[in-house]
């Protein structure tokens, strides 16, 4: 009972709590990590859980009342101070972010302890900071505040993925360069908006823009913002940083960053196009929809074909992510209600799918120590539950009903047909088929090939730098379980349960997608869009 009382006491402050909790906890985690190796995990898990719960309460609040929640930071009203806006869309994305971060985190306790030995405090802290950055980006109603939070997310992201295999620093450095270009372009775009309107608040700018539709500064602001965001979301010609960065890093980080970064960036794109610049400006005045859809089509084709060429499982996932970015961008710029619904729904679904796939990758790596496709030989027999979950995720990416991937694809294709973009439809179907081939290859290996002995000396090769001196003694326990008979058993329960939960979520999300669309996404899209 006291619990609920407490919750209701803080209810008006929930938009702040959802981000402040991870922030404060990250400080505590960083500090406690200096003295104790276990506490940072507990603190971080608790904070993520609180955020998760608050996001659930928020979305329930928003859906029930239908009122946009506005929270004034420092008590100053909108154009002067910074406000947080929780509307249907941001509440939805918040839920996605917090749940993904929470599930990925609790499932990876062992990975964190081994891969980041003696640095758990810093790692957990950065993990929380990344999460709070994304949460802030989603919730904020201020264009500049968005930039700051974007930088927090990026910086902590660089750190998280910088410590993986021995190739990851280079990949991360390239990511850093492009990420900085992207963020700086965004900042520049905000500057252009500021020079034209004199305001930084998104709602305020949005109210000014209709009076100056023809201004070339506004046009440029749009182009520059978009350029920055497109770099950050890794659309086709600007995708170069993503595959290396995501595939070389450690699994914990990949499981956090890969599902969320691009999706949140796309969310921001949607927010900028719909809320900041009005849909009228974006779709009717600018006439860039056609171009963007073609860009998306090329991205889809490129991503799918490149994924075909990959031998490494994680790299393949990375190219699939690129293709999925094409889905969402293309779907959004179809400019009709169905397409945009599909794009938004796909943000949610794709986050869940990618999370599941990367969690699976984490489990495989933890178990076999390799991440090539061949390491999966005979996995169906050894880890049936993991493989079942993995299969679900794979099917979802392919777009097989009743997993969620099918339903968002349905909207996207309907939107494509409605908008007359048959090439986009073809690209989607093509990509589905390619994904089917890709995942079928993996499943086939796991199903047909006999189980292979794994060379456990390589288990932690990817974190050589931090572990060289410790991992021998530390992994005795792990060695015990695996070396007797060479049989890999099912992953530990703490990894398995979140993973299975996510996999089942894939189906549930699919089955309830109608509810999501009707209760949440319909409110997001302005009535002007048909």
């Amino acid at each position, binding site marked *: 009972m006291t619990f609920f009382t407490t919750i209701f006491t803080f209810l008006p402050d929930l938009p702040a709590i959802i981000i402040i909790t991870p922030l404060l906890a990250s400080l505590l985690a960083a500090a406690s990590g*200096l003295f104790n190796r276990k506490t940072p995990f507990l603190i971080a898990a608790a904070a993520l859980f609180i955020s998760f719960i608050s996001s659930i309460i928020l979305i329930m609040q928003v859906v029930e009342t239908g009122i946009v929640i506005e929270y004034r930071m420092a008590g100053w009203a909108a154009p002067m101070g910074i406000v947080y806006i929780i509307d249907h869309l941001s509440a939805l994305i918040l839920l996605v972010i917090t749940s993904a971060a929470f599930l990925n985190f609790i499932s990876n306790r062992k990975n964190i302890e081994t891969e980041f030995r003696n640095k758990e405090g*810093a790692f957990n802290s950065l993990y929380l900071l990344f999460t709070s950055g994304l949460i802030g980006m989603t919730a904020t109603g201020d264009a500049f505040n968005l930039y*700051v939070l974007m930088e927090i997310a990026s910086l902590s992201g660089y*750190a998280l993925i910088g*410590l993986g295999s021995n190739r990851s620093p280079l990949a991360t450095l390239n990511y850093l360069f492009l990420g900085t270009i992207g963020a700086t372009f965004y900042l520049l775009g905000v500057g252009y908006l500021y020079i034209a309107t004199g305001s*930084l608040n998104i709602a305020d700018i949005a109210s000014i823009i209709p009076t100056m539709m023809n201004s070339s*500064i506004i046009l440029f602001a749009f182009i520059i913002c978009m350029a920055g965001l497109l770099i950050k979301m890794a659309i086709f010609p600007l995708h170069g940083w993503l595959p290396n960065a995501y595939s070389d890093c450690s699994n914990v980080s990949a499981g956090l960053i890969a599902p969320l970064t691009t999706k949140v960036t796309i969310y921001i794109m949607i927010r900028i196009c719909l809320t900041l610049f009005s849909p009228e400006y974006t779709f009717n005045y600018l006439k860039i929809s056609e171009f963007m859809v073609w860009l998306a089509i090329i991205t889809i084709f490129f991503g799918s074909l490149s994924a075909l060429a990959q031998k490494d499982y994680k790299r393949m996932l990375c190219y699939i992510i690129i293709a999925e970015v094409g889905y969402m961008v293309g779907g959004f710029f179809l400019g009709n209600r169905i397409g945009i619904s599909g794009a938004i729904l796909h943000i949610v679904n794709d986050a869940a799918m990618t999370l599941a796939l990367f969690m699976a990758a984490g489990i495989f790596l933890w178990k076999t120590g390799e991440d090539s496709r061949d390491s999966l030989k005979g996995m169906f027999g050894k880890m049936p539950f993991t493989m079942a979950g993995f299969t679900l995720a794979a099917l979802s990416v392919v777009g097989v009903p009743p997993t969620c991937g099918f339903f968002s694809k349905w909207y996207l294709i309907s939107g494509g047909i409605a908008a007359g973009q048959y090439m986009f439809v073809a690209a989607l179907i093509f990509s589905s088929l390619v994904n089917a081939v890709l995942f079928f290859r993996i499943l086939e290996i796991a199903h047909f090939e006999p189980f292979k002995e794994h060379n456990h000396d390589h288990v932690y090769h990817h974190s050589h730098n931090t572990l060289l*001196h410790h991992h021998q003694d530390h992994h005795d326990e792990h060695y015990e379980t695996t070396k007797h008979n060479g049989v890999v058993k099912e992953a530990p329960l703490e990894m398995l349960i979140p993973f299975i939960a996510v996999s089942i979520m894939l189906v549930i999300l699919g089955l309830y997608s109608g509810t999501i669309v009707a209760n949440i996404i319909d409110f997001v899209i302005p009535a002007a869009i048909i």
Partner: protein
Amino acid sequence: MKTLGQITVLFCGGLLLFFTSDFPDFGDANSPASLHLSPYFIENTLKDTAVPNVVTAILADYRGYDTMFETTVILTAGLACFLLLRIPKREVKSRYYLHEPTGVTLRFEGDKYPQKSDVFKRIDSNWVPYDLIINFTCRLLIHFIQIFALYVVAHGHYSPGGGFQGGVVLGASVILFAISGNLRAAIKRFGEKTAALFSAAGVFIYAGTGALCMMIGEHFLNYNFLSPLLGTDRIMARSHGIFIVEIGVAVTVMAVMIWIYYNLSSAGKQDEGL
């Protein structure tokens, strides 16, 4: 790649240059940017917060939330450098010690080495004797740098400066100490754990102040809550709130700058370093 880059750059540059003509003139007092929001700040800062430095007032109060995350960015960078570079201590076969009065270097095998001693100083194989002039001057200056830094922090309300600048100067003073002597000496005075704790503590002061406001029932970071605590009116409460968060910023920035320097200059080994 090179041609492509040049083309891109020329194209973007040309485009951007061409459209600069639509900007309001440089120094135009009637541009939208000068008319929409900023007049409110300029005209009301003193009334709202009793802080003459408008920049400080906006930084720590109107947009204090931004600044909290700016501080967090710094903390993130510190943590990132630590995570990326820091190498855990490893068993060493031999250690070098300098006998300071005579300048003789001794090599100790195993774990036979002088315990805490004033005459023996741990050094590394690439140790170089520090320069007398540099060392002396820096020792002389560090006080003044530090007192100057604290002055900057304390007078952020009335003159340029504030937590961030003061923090950087404070950090620079320790960096100066490390450069003029060696890194080990600096670490002995301002250890790595201290740096980590301070950097977290600074943000904690900031965010904790905000959270305290929230718990008392105001909005996050609304310093009004301080007025009953300090026994002042709300305006002065805001002024003091700004001061508190500036201290937080300074602490974090100082500690993180030092921390990053430790890690960068020794490539994570935290030995003698640069």
